[in-house]
């Protein structure tokens, strides 16, 4: 059993650096999507939060409208910096996305799901590739899985019991003219947080040193 006590606290500089890397990554992702959608995306400042696994559901619920239904996509990535990228998009936004991407008036459920998956795949791939490129590591991506669920079912407590600390890096994907808006969360835990810290420190050293 892993009894090693991890130091999972981030310094202000580490948080600042991580936010900036994330910002650059989101920028790349937004550009990829802007190409896909032939639209302009407004960028938002990423937020970084470290919480206990039991708080995750509450944190995510606080960023979305609880009355809406959501398409959620989860994609795993592994490597020195591993975790889960989650994309949450409301039913209305997802419909707009399906309409836009498939160029149809009323997209079918399959078309919406496929569109959401494609969008989130691009997001995850670009963000995580860019982030890991900033941190000089390689990652592998797994097939995303998507679900159509209500706001309260996005995270089940039992899903995350094995994690102790979770870092939530979140931002908003925002294509205003197309009314497509979604939340992106990069979740990573325990050992991955620690290796993330080491990677960030290296990078900080590079820039400040």
């Amino acid at each position, binding site marked *: 059993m892993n009894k090693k006590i991890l130091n999972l606290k981030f310094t202000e*500089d580490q948080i*600042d*650096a991580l936010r900036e890397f994330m*910002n*650059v990554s*989101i*920028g*790349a992702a*937004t*550009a990829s999507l802007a190409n896909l959608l032939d639209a302009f995306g407004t960028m938002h400042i990423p937020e970084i939060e470290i919480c206990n696994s039991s708080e995750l559901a509450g944190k995510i619920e606080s960023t979305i409208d609880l009355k809406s239904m959501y398409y959620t996509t989860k994609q795993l990535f592994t490597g020195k910096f591993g975790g889960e990228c989650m994309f949450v998009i409301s039913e209305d936004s997802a419909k707009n996305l399906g309409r836009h991407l498939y160029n149809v008036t009323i997209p079918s459920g399959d078309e919406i799901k496929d569109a959401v998956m494609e969008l989130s795949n691009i997001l995850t791939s670009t963000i995580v590739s860019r982030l890991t490129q900033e941190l000089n590591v390689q990652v592998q991506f797994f097939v995303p899985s998507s679900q159509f669920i209500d706001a309260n079912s996005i995270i089940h407590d039992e899903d995350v019991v094995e994690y102790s600390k979770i870092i939530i890096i979140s931002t908003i994907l925002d294509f205003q003219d197309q009314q497509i808006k979604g939340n992106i969360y990069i979740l990573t835990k325990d050992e991955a947080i620690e290796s993330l810290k080491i990677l960030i420190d290296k990078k900080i050293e590079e820039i400040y040193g």
Partner: protein
Amino acid sequence: MKVLIVDDSKIARMGVIKSLKEIQPEAELFQATNGLEAVELFKKEKPDVVFLDLTMPVMDGYEALKKIIEIDKEAQVIVVSADIQSEAKHRVLVAGAKNMYPKPINKEIMTHIFEQDLLL
């Protein structure tokens, strides 16, 4: 030469400063963490060059750029942003920026900026 560096991220400002110092070691540096601070500092210090980020709290780079150009339509503003959409570049150029570069800025780009973009 006075240079104003505007970014909410400290590491991003450090990145700009690091490559700037290799080209212009004598430059006098001013830093702002959001658009509002940038506009105030611009008024006060009248810097020769401004490096401006777009995504920032309080006042974003688009708004700050507009205000700076209002103060001095000859202002030498270089936008440095994570936003690499061509539409974003188009918008800031229309608003009066001299050029726009994706983050992070390295020495080569910095050299290019001082040789090609800026009228000093």
